[in-house]
């Protein structure tokens, strides 16, 4: 029963959602809206679960003085401080007015934004080192890849003079023809794989997500 009930629910709701896509009637829309509401409600409760998990793991590290437990204190402090300011000293629970809080905005603008932007900008450095390692003309195909990459990078380079419009045109061709052809092939494969996996889940063939082989 413990195994059969989730499978039955997946089957029923999976087919309901497939059928719903083809029925425009308002009853069908109502079912859709009802299920969407439930997804959001479950999502909010799951967030509480996540919060509990993070707090427990971090607190355990601090309590047992596990290696690097200091980072866990920073995690917990950040988590609860932002929450505290977000609720605007626990005056506003139901609206977003809390995020107008002076401290919340300052933490957001002067800590969260720079930290996130810095993390993302690391990508530029990693791309540079990965490009250095990967773009080697080892074979004909690798050389083609290398040439394509150079063309795309140089397409808007004003130092190229009269070559620049040619580069631009060539890069547009590269993006619209070979790039698109390869991407479409992968997208079609991915699309079919998604439908196949979704059908396997709905039909109960794929059950690993329930922890079953």
């Amino acid at each position, binding site marked *: 029963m413990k195994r059969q009930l989730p499978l039955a629910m997946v089957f029923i709701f999976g087919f309901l959602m497939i059928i719903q896509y083809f029925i425009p009637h308002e009853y069908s829309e109502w079912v859709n809206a009802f299920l969407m509401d439930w997804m*959001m409600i479950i999502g909010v409760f799951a967030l509480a679960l996540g919060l509990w998990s993070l707090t427990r793991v971090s607190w355990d590290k601090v309590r047992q003085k596990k290696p690097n437990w200091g980072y866990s204190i920073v995690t917990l402090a950040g988590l609860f401080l932002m929450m505290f300011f977000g609720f605007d000293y626990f005056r506003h629970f139901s609206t977003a007015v809390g995020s107008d809080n002076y401290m919340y905005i300052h933490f*957001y603008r002067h800590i*969260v934004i720079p930290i996130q932007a810095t993390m993302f900008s690391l990508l530029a450095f990693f791309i540079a080192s990965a490009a250095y390692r990967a773009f080697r003309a080892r074979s004909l195909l690798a050389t083609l890849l*290398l040439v394509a990459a150079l063309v795309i990078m140089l397409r*808007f380079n004003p130092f190229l003079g009269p070559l620049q419009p040619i580069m631009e045109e060539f890069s547009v061709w590269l993006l619209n023809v070979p790039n698109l052809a390869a991407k479409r092939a992968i997208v079609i494969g991915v699309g079919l794989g998604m439908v196949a996996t979704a059908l396997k889940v709905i039909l109960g063939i794929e059950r690993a997500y329930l922890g079953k082989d």
Partner: protein
Amino acid sequence: MNIFDRIMSFDRRWIFLSLAIVCVVTFMWPFHVPITLSNEVRSIYNRFDSLKEGDMIYLSVDYDPNALAELHPTTYVLAEMCFRKNVKVIFGTLSNLGQGMVDQVIDDITDSVMLDKTYNGVFYEGREIQNGIDYVFLGYKPYPAMVIQAMGLDFRVPFPTDYYGTPLDSIPIMKGVKNFDQCKLVMDMAAGNVAEMWITYGHGNYNVPLALAVTGVMGADMYPYLNSGQIFGLAAGLLGSAQIEKLCDNPGRAIDGMRIQLFAHILIILFIIMGNIGFFVTRRRKKMGGDVR
């Protein structure tokens, strides 16, 4: 160990350091990079340019601070263009740190629109932008696919109130506005899979006229949707933002940033060339060594 062997076993931290130096130096060097315009960005501008006073659009700010450098300039310029032209804007976000992004855009643009300015030869008198009259900010709800579908039915399903807690029915510009049918277009500035959700659920289910501004990495992925007509325009990365700034005659951080990007690209190309020279020489030497033996 000769120079070519050194090149082949190059410590990547040298690459990081060189890139950092190039970025810092070009940031401070006032060099103007000419911006070439592409058709996919031009079509975004044309659609915005054809909007009339009183029209309504939906601007979806679906990125976190991490994509700020690439996407914020597009949001700024397009929002300012709408406010100048007296086009009503519904702001929304499907990214959980997007609320702060929208807050920042509204704060800054409100100040900017107070001043008189001329764009592309058209003079706009400064005016005050008012919440509920010129724009509404719906706020954030998790699970973007569901929120887009729910908004397609009625904005009030996922957002009974706006970000500030005012019921949508009592907001002047939302009178008679039910869903995307009343919006002339949806412009999604996205970092992540939200862009594809807009295509699948927004355009697929509700046929919304959709354009995207995405990060540079995502750009090449979105071209199939452009060719199939699922999106009418595409601005990818910093270059896309710079093109929008140029078209709107409102130069800002994107056009500035192009300078840094240009020299960073040149540096990466130099490293690639260097790596290949090292690769060929060491391979040749290995081959020759093999022959001797």
